[in-house]
């Protein structure tokens, strides 16, 4: 088992949400595999990828989930959002409608995700300068009013993609660290949902060993 290569200090689940076609899947593939596909497939159901980064000497493994932009009000939301500590809310700067729908996605987060989830507003496709229909200042103001981080990216030319994920993971890490300092008995606050308590049985006694070695 390649346990060494897969060791990390924290596992953070981050979800990507936003309208269909804004570039969520290419943000995911650019960050996790440094790939961009001009004609990437539509996302059906859920996509999933991981990548690890370093923050303050700690290894943070990001488990990034991507879902179909048409999947609003679908039943996969409960499983999709369970355990998520961060969300990237993506819109397309060249399509004002995708920015208008940000309000709907925020309501979905409030309905299904943990109330303490860290949210970053991401204006993608910043390479389409001449087609811009969402002014940067307008989106930045909206983010400030709603308590969101804000950044503009281009999955096509890689602008700010690394920065966006680094920033949200760092922000999550800061919050987790603060909680750990404040509540030491709690231990690791952010736990992967799949971790189960291990049932510890007594260690083999010396008598048994002696008998076998007679």
């Amino acid at each position, binding site marked *: 088992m390649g346990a060494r290569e*897969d060791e990390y200090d924290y596992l953070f689940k981050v979800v990507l949400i936003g309208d*269909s076609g804004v570039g969520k899947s290419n943000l995911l593939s650019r960050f996790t595999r440094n790939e961009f*596909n001009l004609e990437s497939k539509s996302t*059906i159901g859920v996509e999933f990828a991981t990548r690890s980064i370093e923050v303050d000497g700690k290894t943070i493994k990001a488990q990034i989930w991507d879902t179909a932009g048409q999947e609003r009000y679908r039943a996969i939301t409960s499983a999709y959002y369970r355990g998520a500590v961060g969300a990237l809310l993506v819109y397309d700067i060249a399509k004002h409608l995708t920015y208008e729908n940000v309000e709907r996605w925020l309501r979905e987060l409030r309905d299904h995700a943990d109330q303490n989830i860290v949210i970053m507003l991401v204006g993608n496709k910043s390479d389409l300068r001449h087609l811009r229909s969402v002014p940067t200042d307008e989106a930045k103001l909206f983010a400030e009013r709603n308590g969101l981080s804000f950044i503009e990216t281009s999955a096509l030319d890689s602008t700010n993609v690394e920065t966006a994920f680094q920033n949200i993971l760092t922000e999550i890490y800061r919050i987790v660290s603060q909680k750990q300092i404040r509540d030491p008995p709690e231990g690791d606050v952010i736990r992967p949902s799949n971790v189960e308590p291990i049932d510890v049985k007594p260690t*083999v006694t010396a008598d048994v060993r002696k008998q076998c070695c007679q």
Partner: protein
Amino acid sequence: MTVWGIEAITLNGSSARESLEHLPGNGAIRVIPEAGAMNSVERYRQEWQVLLENLDADPESLRQSAFAGDLKMSKFRSVHWALLLRVLTSEHRSWTSQRLQQRVRYDKFRADYVRNPHQLAVDCNDDPLSQSTQSVWNQYFSDQDLFAVIRQDVVRTFPGVDFFRKPLVQNAMVNILFYYAREHPYMCYRQGMHEILAPIIFVVYSDHQSLLHFSELAKTDINPTLLDVLDPAYLEADTYSLFSRLMASVESYYRVSNLVSTPGGHIEQRAESPGDNETSTEAEVIGQLNFIRDKILAKQDQHLHHYLQKMEIPLHIFGIRWLRLLFGREFMLLDLLLLWDAIFADSDRFDLPNYILVAMLVHIRDKLLLSDYTTSLTYLMRYPNNVDVHLVLRHALFMLNPKQFEYPPNAFTCVSFANSSADKDVPPPAGQRPRTNSENSSMATSGSQIDRQITFMQERNAADSSALAKLQDTHRVAMDGYLENSPELLRLELKNAQTVIKIARSKLQSYLSTVRHHVGKQANGSEELGRTLDGIEELCSFLDVKFMFPLHQRSAPIDQALEANEQKQLNTVSKPPKPTASSTPANAPAALSATGGYQMPENAFMHSSMRRLLGELREIELSTITSDEKPGNAVVQNGLPAAEPQQRHRNESS
């Protein structure tokens, strides 16, 4: 892979035939090229003729052909699909009128659903900004939105396949999906429908191109019904007929309750009602996936079922995509068509997708069971491209109907002894992205270790059988400390115990590495837990067969171990009369089936070799295997209480 590739194969075949027949002995040289082309045209005509004759003789035989994968090279796959899906009846003499009805109905969609207010003499009272559902203007603007949503997905269909970049194909797809959404407002357009449509239009177009090609070669004398049924002018209409019929079977995968359509039919709003809750919006597909998990998977592979539950991996994380696209992202296009042939052959019940999903899970069970949460999820989200679609299909067909389809004998072997080096050599197919290096190396490492251990055990079994045969031949006298009257039996029982202990040790080690991996995730590892894991590792060293059962060494500690084992053998041998008296031939297969499914290959191998060597002692052999099974399992359970004994229930009626 493009449709032209298929035609290129046909042309090459014709050319090869021409060159082969170009011999000096033939007087009429100028006839040869025509003769070569005529032969392929003749095969084309013959395939059509055979199809019609089969329909007259035995219409249901077409389903057997589809199950068997015989449609792979057919030039009339779209006609087979139409018959399997009952778009066309088996009464082929009325196909022309059946097609006509469908085409007329499709043409009517254009008049009904495409109304441009700018060009119509609309009611003076209709306001372009009207929100009324009766307003032509409102419908017009909603339709523009719907077209845009559909086209956004159509242009992203099968990125690696040139066929789907053709404007003709893309426009046809947009139209078909639009008319479907308008004709079925309760379904609207949902993402994924474009990839249900894609293979259908690909197959219909391929058949049309074949017809055009052979018509040109033949010049004349193509069956009139054939010319009508595969008329390329009706690509859209005929594809729509197949698509809407298939959607009727898969609409439960797409339907979501408690949603209301807007006039445009493509954007849904949740109804605002006081009693609204999570349950009421559950997609039907999730109920179906829960059924598959609890009624099919739990019966076929209890261990895997338990594993997915323990890891909290709900089937709908990956299963929604698998079902909504009918496995279109998991297999390459040509392999996918083989699956769809079989799925359509079962179209009246449409149960086969449930069993295909389970077969796909079972075929990667070893990868899943040896992986942590993230790696398991990666396998499920990006299904391995080296899984043989034929094995998956045969396994699924067996589960669907064990009386009609045989259990594929090599399916389980493939599962147990997958070759990890083959994984590395197989290049990722077009459109799929390769896994990251760390994921590849991690999975290859663990798979390689298990494979090496299993290969080692197989070699030891073979060597042991050979040694046993030699012993029997030489009639070797009893050794000191062994029963004089049954030296062969003692040796045999030692080999059984050795193999069982090896298997137990191998499993214990893999469980240990899995647990260690999980412990590594936690920030603070417990010291007590570390000692426990060390204790498990110590048990593994105790189970090292070289230490316990050397074949050719003697020393004081080893003699002690042998004496302890001899005591157990004495107890076993003292009971032979009872099992022999009570057992019947029917009990033998029952005893064999009681063993863990995961160990089937090893036990099957031993059983086969022992039967050759000691046919008369069959009952004792089976009893020995069964009794030796328990100590191994006991050790595993003591070492890792959470581990579930692996059980797999084969259908006894097979």
